[in-house]
């Protein structure tokens, strides 16, 4: 078989020539040009559209007012200053508002994740008649946007004395349909053999949940936790209607107040500093843990 030449049969010189051939092909002018035009140029345009507004926000937050109102704006601040951030703190109780946001996000997410874990476990592993019906009820709840329940919840929480309190912000959102749904799907897919040894040892449901189901499901739980954190941090409508005093506001509501103070003067530097405070923490969380967040938010789409 003379036509079948194996790699070993090639002389070293021939091999070198082949390699050089593919090298020069890959870096031929035409190939580079087409990669740039069809690959990088569109990506670059897309990235500019996404990144430029955010870069504009961050850079403007360091600009003094004279660079905001100018007719010849520059991308980079010529005379960078932190005064905008100081002005935000002078108009709203910034540290309190930041603390409220962190408090509401952490407490709310922790409780929601715990409830989601236990509910999903019960739906999959504790056999009771009608469990499927309860699951269906949770699926319908998943569909109801918070705006629909806003008015009755406002009356309920007001009646309970929760107006203008942090627990009043947290309480109505604690029931979790999304996390329950996601973790139920995950628990259902766990192999039965995982639990068999523990059952022979006579382990109860608490041990089976916390010593077996939870440890093997950490990525799914992380997904639920991160999506919940993002939603709690960004939540706007409910805190907006239930909170009146600046000392109890979360960041988005505080920014809303800031905007109504600054709207007439158009001091965009201050508003950009405020926007940075609410946007950048989530950008960092997302950049670090995007795999889990994207998986959670596109759940159902990517099967």
């Amino acid at each position, binding site marked *: 078989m003379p036509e079948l030449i194996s790699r070993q049969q090639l002389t070293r010189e021939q091999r070198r020539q082949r390699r050089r051939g593919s090298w020069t092909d890959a870096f031929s002018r035409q190939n580079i040009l087409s990669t740039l035009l*069809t*690959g990088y140029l569109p*990506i670059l345009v*897309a*990235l500019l559209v*996404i*990144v430029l*507004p955010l870069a*504009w*926000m961050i850079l*403007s937050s360091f600009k003094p007012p004279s660079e*905001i*109102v100018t007719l010849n704006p520059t991308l980079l601040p010529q005379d960078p200053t932190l005064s905008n951030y100081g002005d935000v703190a002078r108009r709203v109780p910034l540290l309190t508002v930041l603390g409220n946001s962190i408090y509401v996000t952490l407490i709310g997410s922790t409780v929601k994740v715990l409830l989601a874990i*236990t*509910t999903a476990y*019960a*739906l999959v592993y504790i*056999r*009771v008649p009608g469990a499927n019906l*309860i699951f269906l*009820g949770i699926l*319908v*709840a998943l*569909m*109801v*946007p918070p*705006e*629909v*329940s*806003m*008015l*009755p919840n406002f*009356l*309920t929480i007001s009646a309970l004395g929760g107006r203008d309190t942090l627990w009043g912000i947290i309480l109505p959102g*604690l*029931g979790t*349909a999304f996390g*329950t749904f996601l973790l139920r799907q995950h628990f259902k897919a766990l192999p039965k053999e995982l639990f068999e040894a523990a059952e022979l040892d006579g382990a109860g449901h608490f041990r089976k949940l916390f010593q077996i189901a939870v440890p093997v499901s950490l990525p799914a739980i992380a997904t639920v936790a991160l999506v919940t954190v*993002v939603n709690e941090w*960004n939540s*706007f*409508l409910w805190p907006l209607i239930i909170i009146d005093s600046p000392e109890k506001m979360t960041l*988005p509501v505080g*920014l*809303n107040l800031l*905007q*109504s103070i600054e709207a007439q003067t*158009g001091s*965009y530097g201050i*508003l*950009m500093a405020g*926007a940075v405070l*609410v946007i950048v923490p*989530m*950008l960092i969380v997302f*950049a670090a843990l995007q795999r889990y967040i994207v998986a959670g*938010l*596109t759940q159902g*789409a*990517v099967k």
Partner: protein
Amino acid sequence: MRSTTSSADDDGAADQQNPGPTEQELEANRRKARRRAKSRNWTLFLLFAGPNILLILAFIYYPLLSNMYYSTLDWRLGSATATSVGLQNYVDFFTSSSGVEVWRVTGIFTAGAVLGSMILGLLIALVINKKIPGRTAARTAVFSPYVLSGVGVALVWNFIFDPHRGALSHVLAAFGMSSPQWYLDEDWALFMVIIVYVWKNLGYCAVVFLAGLQSIPKDLLESATIDRAGPARRFFSIVLPLLTPTVFFLFVTNIIFSMTNAFDILRTMTPTGHGTNTIIFEIYLQSFGAYQRAGYSASIAVVLFFTLFLITAVQLRFVERKVHYA
């Protein structure tokens, strides 16, 4: 031998003398045990799932029902008295000029938001789908607006769209154009919030489309290339048909999202809602805005719920079954 037979006989005799009660007792015991296990299961189930179920009942289901009651009232928020008006609020919402205006705005916003984010999302997905270095970073960047605070995003775009100081007005001025009155003109305002919503949302579409694109078998595309099908032909004859399940999924979820997720952008960019009062914004404006018409607002919330219910039902009934790999 003898003793055993006799004992067996004795047993038999005992069984014959008293056969029913033992059997019944055993059965009763078994049933009791089963009932006890079942009630223990219920106790455990409620211990695990009860708090969540209670919260969902109290803050999602109870509001649905009480909205239906409130929607039959002429009632101002904070007022102690209310008069029953039957279905008048619904009639108003579907026939009054302000109600019809809400439907018009919702329709335009939804159409613009869905088409804009799906078309741009697909284009971006096609670009990112190429095997070039840095595409993971590109994917992350494109998705990121989706997880950012709508209020923060709206503040940034408020600055960009400002007709006098905004970046956009400087760009337009460079081309010799003057900026539209984004905030005063109601049509431009609607266009503006659609742009911002699409900007925030297209990364979601891009990532879902990307997953769809990557599930298309490579050999199909390769054999098409060998048959000398150009890129356009390959896209329309292979990629798009195989992408139909993704397209329909995104179409439905985007309709739902654009009807429910846009509140923070709308409220921050156009606080009074002239020209941008979509159905979700109108629920807020009617009860917590200047009018405080709680009963009317509740009727809009009920209509929104049933609209979403209908869309979801249609998706589950038809789209999921029939469109897969059409």
